């Protein structure tokens, strides 16, 4: 495979996230970046991946990316469509999900997610959309991937609100809750990939995207970010990954009547 010459940091993030999804995995997909990456995986290396969206489609194979979690395209291309209640009760709580794929407004060093408020709960400075399906996905999926843009605003030392649990206060704090799911196994950003350090469960950088310096990651993180002893360089997107991703986004833009 040849390496592409020019690509954006968001494309690198999407490709790096897609590569984490194994073929045949059953994947509970959030809208936005997770959905883009999951469908990129499905069209490239993981043709038998099963995509489940919380609105009800199981085995969705959308030809264009959904803008909302309940787009008709998901129903049209799914193996079956069940009720939302069934999705959460039988399929998620029933421990049928291999990978929960989440976005986030903010994360902390233990992979906890805030999508609820910035500031005090009763009188927030920013009211975020809220939990959606994430708290139970974070607890019940066998493992969780988190994908988001990295900055000091999004990677914070202390969350004002934990909406969905990562490793909580670190160490064995999550293990003590005896949750079925292992927790977040990677945070994929536009700069790097982080994975939990054994024992402490603090997220450390294990792979830097090509051209990204440690200083740049440090500047974009709200805590003293640490690096693995053997930090790798993330393989750049291949021509095929990029062309599939761009075709998908182009088809999506045409279908949804937008120029971007």
């Amino acid at each position, binding site marked *: 495979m040849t390496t592409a010459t020019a690509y954006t940091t968001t494309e690198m993030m999407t490709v790096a996230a897609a590569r984490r999804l194994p073929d045949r995995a059953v994947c509970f997909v959030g809208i936005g970046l997770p959905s883009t990456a999951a469908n990129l995986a499905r069209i490239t290396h993981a043709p038998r991946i099963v995509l489940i969206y919380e609105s009800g489609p199981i085995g969705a194979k959308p030809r264009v990316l959904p803008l909302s979690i309940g787009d008709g395209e998901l129903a049209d291309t799914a193996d079956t469509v069940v009720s939302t*209640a069934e999705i959460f*009760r039988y399929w998620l*709580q029933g421990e049928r999900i291999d990978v929960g794929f989440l976005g986030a407004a903010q994360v902390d060093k233990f992979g906890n997610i805030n999508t609820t408020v910035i500031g005090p709960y009763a009188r927030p400075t920013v*009211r975020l959309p809220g939990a*959606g*399906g994430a*708290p*139970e996905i974070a607890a019940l999926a066998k493992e969780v991937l988190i994908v988001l843009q990295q900055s000091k605003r999004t990677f914070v030392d202390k969350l004002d609100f*934990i909406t*969905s649990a990562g490793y909580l206060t670190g160490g064995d704090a999550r293990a003590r809750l005896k949750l079925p799911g292992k927790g977040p196994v990677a945070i994929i950003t536009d700069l790097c990939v982080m994975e939990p350090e054994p024992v402490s469960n603090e997220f450390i950088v294990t792979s830097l995207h090509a051209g990204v310096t440690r200083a740049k990651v440090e500047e974009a993180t709200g805590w003293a970010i640490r690096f693995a002893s053997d930090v790798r360089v993330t393989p750049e997107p291949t021509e095929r990954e990029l062309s599939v991703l761009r075709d998908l986004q182009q088809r999506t833009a045409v279908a949804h009547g937008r120029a971007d």
Partner: protein
Amino acid sequence: MADIVTLREAVGTLIHDGDVVAMEGFTHLIPFAAGHEVIRQKRRDLTLVRMTPDLIYDQLIGAGCARRLVFSWGGNPGVGSLHRFRDAVEHDWPRPLEVEEHSHAAMANAYVAGAANLPFALFRGYAGSDLPRYNDRIRPVNCPFTGEVLTAVPSLRPDVTVIHAQRADRDGNVLIRGILGVQKEAVLAARRALITVEEIVDDLGADTNACLLPHWVTSAVCVVPRGAHPSYAYGYYDRDNLFYQEWDNIARTREGFQSWLNHHVLKEPAA
């Protein structure tokens, strides 16, 4: 027994000030026309229940209809914030809004429990989340057989559930196709049910296992073509994604919202 009536009459009869009202539809089949009629009839002090408030509750909240919101995800899907919802929470405009906040799993389970005539829903929820610290209606409960700690939330039992569906037959039996969301559960959990449909047909053409709500569980059926716009009706029309994007600008300021409401909802004669 469902009567096939006008939307104005159905809202006037079935929805009262202070009611607990659930308008459901998971991105698909959102009952916008019915929401607009509630705004026109100036209902006040409603407790609005809905998993994803979406634009429909942004409009009802901005119009001053709501006292309380029970929800689990309050954004403009694929676009960003709900500005009227945020203005109410952050600045009490046009009036303070009490918030009861859950996860999707909790609300879906709470509708199921309501439909099953149970007092609470039991599930594995909220582990490690801060939400139970701010919502005392999320409580731990022990399994009576093993002692395992599980999570309970009260059932949802709306006074009225409002949904939109593709079609009804002349007896008022209603057929829903595509993304089903929690509409069936929300209707069966409610005391009264108001259903708007795209059209009335002689024969629903329903498969044996189709999602069908028999006429004797609904209170009123109203024919409102495009009644889910700007959401969509599978098999009838697509989601108006452009409007969802435009809403971000319309609702960003109080003046912009008020002007839109005056022109597109308040001036429009009721069906």
